[in-house]
């Protein structure tokens, strides 16, 4: 793989050389090339918005965004097939060991904050839950809405596939260490699939990043414990730390980022980039 990097830059350089001659206004340091970002489904729309603004500013750059899940992105980073990876969870020690074993390093960048919204069908009378009640629901200890103050109906759990950073975060921070999702939980292929099923199914409960909130799902207010206040996932509540299931969103770069990757990361963290974060319904880091 050490060989492939210079080769790739050579290919990019050749592509640029073959393309139309640069405009007379472009400076000598005008940024060129292609950037591939892979990873978190939660961050796909956010990354796409960043990419569009970035490409408008640097017309000779193309940025391609692919989802698939944070795990998918980090696996690509470990294999060295991707320069920049978006992730809604931190890398595990196991993943870090695997990168080091392949003679590479990484850098972690916090680029936004996200609250995990718990959503139900708008007709569901359950309006608030504690974190431990959520754990009871999603581990399958409680199987009927009656016990949560709802109708006498079976609970339908909507989770993400195991390659999703949101799945891993929810498992670790809501279910707790060593706890498993109930085997009956439906593993949906995308956050949008959860949003659709929760809009259509009166008994469903699911979770996804705040960016997917929509009027067809009802957000459940969450409290850390029964003694705490019930809080909805809003920008103010996530930034103040009042909302209990919130997390940072990351970029991981292979080795120390340079050139295009570095410029893109700086852009994402700049005030302009953070304004896009806000526009996409996530929470800016500042």
């Amino acid at each position, binding site marked *: 793989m050490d060989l492939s990097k210079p080769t790739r830059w050579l290919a990019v350089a050749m592509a640029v050389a073959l393309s139309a001659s640069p405009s007379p206004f472009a400076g000598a340091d005008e940024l060129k090339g292609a950037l591939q970002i892979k990873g978190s489904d939660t961050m796909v729309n956010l990354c796409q918005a960043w990419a569009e603004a970035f490409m408008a500013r640097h017309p000779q750059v193309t940025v391609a965004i692919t989802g698939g*899940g944070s795990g*998918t992105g980090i*696996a690509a980073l470990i294999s060295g097939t991707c320069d920049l990876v978006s992730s809604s969870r931190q890398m595990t020690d196991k*993943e870090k060991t695997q990168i080091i074993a392949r003679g590479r390093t990484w850098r972690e960048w916090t680029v936004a904050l996200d609250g995990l919204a718990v959503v139900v069908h708008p007709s569901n009378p359950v309006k608030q839950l504690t974190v431990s009640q959520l754990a009871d629901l999603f581990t399958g200890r409680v199987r009927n809405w009656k016990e949560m103050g709802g109708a006498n109906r079976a609970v*339908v759990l909507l989770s993400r*596939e195991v390659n999703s950073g949101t799945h891993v975060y929810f498992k670790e921070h809501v279910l707790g260490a060593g706890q498993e999702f109930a085997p*009956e939980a*439906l593993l949906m292929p995308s956050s949008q699939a959860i949003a659709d*099923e929760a809009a259509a*199914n009166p008994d469903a409960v699911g979770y996804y990043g705040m960016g997917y909130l929509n009027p067809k799902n009802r957000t459940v207010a969450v409290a850390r414990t029964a003694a705490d206040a019930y809080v909805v996932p809003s920008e103010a509540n996530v930034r103040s730390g009042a909302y209990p299931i919130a997390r940072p969103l990351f970029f991981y770069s292979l080795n120390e980022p340079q050139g295009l990757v570095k410029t893109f990361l700086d852009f994402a963290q700049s005030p302009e980039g953070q304004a896009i974060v806000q526009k996409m319904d996530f929470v800016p880091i500042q």
Partner: protein
Amino acid sequence: MTRGQQFREGCIEGLIRISGLSSIVLVVLILLFLLREGVALFHTVPLGDFVMGQRWYPISDPPRFGILPLLLGSAVVTAGAAVFSVPMGVASALFISEISKGWVKETLKTGIELFAAIPSVVLGFIGITLLVPLIRQVFYLPTGLTALAGSITLAFMAMPTIISITEDALAAVPRGYREAALALGATRWQMMVRVLLPAAGSGILAAVMLGLGRVIGETMAVMMVTGNAPVIPHTLLQPVRTLTATIAAEMGETVRGSDHYVALFAIGIVLFVISFAINLIADLFLHRERV
């Protein structure tokens, strides 16, 4: 023959022999690749725990790699698909082969070939937008993402194979059988059910096996409509997770050489063995017919 001609003949013969052998060589190589990547799992997980294990938690610590729910998920969806597709497929083939004539027959045959060309993801899309909500309402279920939705979707994928091979088998029954039955006073229905179907029996069985072989290997449509919950299914009206959907959903996340990666290849071996057995049975029946 001149020397030049002899040389040309030799070359052509060699090429044909190579292309004939290459398909077998490829299958063997694929099997070897699967074994090389997948067998390492059994150093850490005993075969019994893998096949009979009831929990599939690949990313937990420690991970659990029990594929019994996935095996049964695939089995339930496939059995359901057989219940829908075999009677309809055989009946359609009988109609096309024995009853329809002229342009009706030609249109139906072309239509069924077109049916086979529909991409599975499109069938899955139709399933998730039309079939899944319908199943939830009709059976008053908590969710419509069930094995039944998968079975019905897959039945549509198996039917073209079943119909066209059954029709071939029926066409191969000698004309004299039909004439003799009718001459003895049998009605057309009696002739079809008591003479034609038994005579074409082994061909029909082969058609069914090949259709089901396609069903058990299908991934995309089934992943979209079955809910993917790794539980041991008791009825068709429960969500299930199949072997193929598990590989497709989780492969992207695994790191080469990790336990999870190896476990997915071990699932691949299981699928290979199942498909191989189904095709072998189909082949045995087809062979018996020829003798």
